């Protein structure tokens, strides 16, 4: 055995070949689109039923309705009451999960392949034929109202909710999926029934089936469970009003939510950017990786590794079909608040031109996005989630194969270009959830004007 040469790092070999899973598409006679994906590592299967219309489809004043409808799926269906649904899920060891996004709601059920048929039928019954009984509705709504009350004490939740309101103003995307106390109290079981009838239609849904079976078998499972789902003739969840950009309004440069004696300031610094389907997507991903999207990003290295102000800082896009927010998120020691904000604003300014990404930074950002890409195809759930994203945004069938070359084609000039177009320092909103009395003086040094004082409203 030869001794290891520690004078230099071992080189990384050529990227291993990875064959992305094939997706076979079908449309059932009722209009349901079905995507099957074989995944043979362990005998597990995931069904993901994606319904168009998420929290962005909540009617004005009824924010939280889409999430309530989604929550009612496991509260009783057919002959099964809520407890019996829970029992049926446990008996097949199912992992059941609902994700309410801005544009769609994904209902997912993972189980062992030997329980595939039972799992598929259960999911179909829960989502398409929920009982939607008033007694269960009132119980579930009350739990959500109580949860909202608790969120007032969670600094990160306060920051999320307030930031969305600040950047969107009046807009279908301007709220968290859970809604607010006032809007939830307005929602009735009739609203739930009507929303379900409008939105949960086979023609507005995509079913992704990924597991250790052949395409034919996977399709058969889908057909057996979902072919009987008939359209109720609804006209959709209210279209996609969320595409509408917010009307021109004054930007809040600096806002503070008072949190007395808080140990840290929870920060959000960002603005609206663009849609997930923008052709600038690859350049924006690379820009984000350089700026704040990974451990070795400029902002995290500055705030954490150089200054020790925080446990970590990350930036990212909260992607939607319509205009999506970009934000830098971190929680910093109260005493470091103003300096941390100044550092972040300086880094955002720098990436727009005074300090374009160096060759090393570009290579690092691209490598971490591309070389790690196959890692996301390890489990049936991961694959189903990726296919669900393709379905949601109408991405091309070749999306997986094209991802790496598209990222590798991004140049430093492209990054500066998108940073300049989408990050306007004069339109950035800085939100602080923290102890205002302790930081008011230092915030003045930022020259962002008098802060708008907000309260935690849920």
């Amino acid at each position: 055995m030869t001794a290891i040469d520690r004078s230099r790092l071992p080189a990384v070999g050529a990227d291993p070949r990875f064959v992305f899973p094939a997706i076979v598409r079908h449309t059932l006679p009722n209009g349901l689109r079905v995507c099957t994906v074989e995944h043979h590592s362990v005998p597990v299967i995931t069904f993901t039923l994606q319904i168009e219309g998420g929290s962005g489809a909540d009617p004005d004043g009824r924010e939280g309705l889409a999430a309530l409808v989604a929550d009612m799926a496991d509260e009783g269906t057919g002959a099964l009451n809520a407890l019996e649904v829970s029992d049926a899920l446990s008996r097949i060891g199912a992992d059941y999960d609902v994700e309410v996004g801005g544009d769609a709601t994904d209902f997912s059920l993972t189980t062992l392949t030997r329980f595939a048929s039972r799992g598929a039928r259960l999911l179909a019954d829960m989502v398409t034929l929920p009982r939607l009984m008033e007694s269960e509705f009132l119980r579930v709504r009350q739990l959500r109202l109580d949860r909202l009350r608790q969120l007032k004490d969670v600094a990160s939740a306060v920051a999320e909710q307030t930031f969305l309101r600040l950047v969107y103003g009046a807009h279908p995307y301007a709220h968290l999926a859970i809604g607010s106390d006032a809007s939830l109290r307005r929602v009735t079981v009739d609203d739930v029934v009507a929303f379900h009838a409008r939105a949960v239609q086979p023609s507005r849904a995509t079913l992704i089936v990924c597991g250790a079976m052949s395409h034919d078998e996977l399709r058969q499972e889908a057909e057996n469970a979902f072919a009987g789902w008939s359209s109720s003739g609804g006209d959709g969840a209210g279209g996609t009003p969320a595409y509408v950009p917010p009307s021109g309004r004054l930007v809040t440069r600096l806002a503070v939510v008072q949190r007395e004696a808080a140990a840290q300031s929870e920060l959000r610094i960002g603005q609206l950017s663009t849609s997930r389907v923008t052709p600038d997507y690859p350049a924006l991903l690379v820009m984000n990786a350089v700026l704040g999207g990974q451990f070795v990003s400029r902002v995290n290295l500055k705030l954490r590794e150089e200054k020790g102000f925080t446990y970590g800082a990350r930036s990212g896009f909260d992607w939607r079909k319509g205009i999506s927010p970009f934000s830098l998120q971190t929680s910093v020691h109260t005493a470091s608040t103003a300096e941390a904000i100044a550092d972040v604003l300086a880094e955002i300014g720098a990436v727009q031109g005074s300090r374009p990404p160096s060759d090393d930074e570009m290579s690092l950002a691209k490598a971490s996005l591309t070389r790690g890409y196959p890692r996301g195809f390890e489990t049936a759930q991961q694959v189903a989630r990726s296919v669900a994203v393709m379905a949601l945004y109408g991405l091309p069938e070749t999306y997986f194969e094209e991802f790496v070359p598209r990222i590798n084609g991004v140049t430093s000039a492209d990054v500066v270009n998108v940073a300049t177009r989408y990050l306007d320092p004069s339109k950035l909103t800085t939100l602080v959830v923290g102890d205002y009395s302790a930081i008011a003086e230092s915030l003045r040094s930022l020259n962002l004007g008098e802060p708008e004082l907000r309260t935690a409203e849920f």
Partner: protein
Amino acid sequence: MTSLAIDLPFTKRTLANGLDVIVHEDRHVPIVAVNVWYHVGSKNERPGRTGFAHLFEHLMFEGSEHYNAGYFPPLQQAGALLNGSTNADRTNYWEVVPTSAIDRALWMESDRMGFLLPALTRERFETQRDVVLNERRQSYENRPYGMVMMALSAALYPPDHPYSWMTIGSAEDIRAMQLEDVQEFFRTYYHPANASLVLAGDVEIERAFELAGAYFGEIPAGVPPKPVSKGAELSSERRLVLEDRVELPRLYLAWHSPAMFAAGDAEMDLLGDLLANGKTSRLYKTLVYDLRIALDVSGYQSSREIGSFFLLVVTAAPGHTLTEIANRIDEELRRVVNEGPSVDEMERAVAQAEAHFMYRLQTVGGFGGKSDQLNAYNVLKGNPGFFAADLDRYRAATRESLQAAARAYLALDRRVALSAIPRGQHALALDGSVAVSVS
């Protein structure tokens, strides 16, 4: 129902310097998981130095002698995902890399095992001390109910018991730490004889051992540290009340329970599900679904090396007191002690255990992936092949064994009952609770 054949195959060899090397081949995706456990955690600390094992973990990412510019850049350049964590019993570190970067990952991992100290400067140490203080603020001090587990740990164990403090440590101790403390800690705990390495994924078995030997074989052997052992018991119910920045009162009930893998440990895990996991669980059904006096319940067996605890947590619905909730919980506990679980409950429990063991075989790396599990079994059980036997513990559990465990360990008069309440609202706490504070 026939039993599933479900297993996690491996090959284990020990290098001359004492390093355990375990290999598991899985070629589905071209990635390799590198996972290292050091058998050291906050239970190896002493009072006045709490939080040290975790702070040390941070220093492991700051660079080592032969690559002295941070641990992350060369690995992110290779497309790796990486992280580490510290708990009471162990510290783990892992990378998941494309197959093409296995050499680089092993070079980096072995360099920090063998050559950490020359790269450690006072400045890096002090910065990471600040980062950890901020981690403590973010994850504990600035979070609702975030300080409860500190108060609870201190009540469950005497002050000289290493489980009486949490892994994050006290802020005062963290501030007092000095660079000099690091040297001794590294020499005592960070060496091959106190570590275990797993390579899992897209690598041929013999090749994996060859690489492990080449990169780690040259690191000098150390002296295995003495195991920590210490008992603890409660002789009465201790009622405590802690004020917090919260809207609703929450009750925490905690008991001592059998150590990880000891007789009764799996039963307590199953009792956690039976009592508090899912709508059909007894406490959820009674408190949240039927009576609607609580918002949520959770419960679990926290299995640890030298003694576990069993915890139930219930948040009161507005207008309801923790006394009302505690009375109902005690009724349910008496019922499980007197009657045991139903046949239905046992069937559900076994079905869920089998499925969850299968789900655990889906990823090679990361927290909870196959490499992490092999190291857990190797370090904490002395046998990386314990996966199938672990599942058998759950299959072998019976109504009688659960009832016996509930009777033995869930005594109403030997536990800690902590009321976490909104500031100033002491009437919401259990009667007779003594105020505690943590900082």
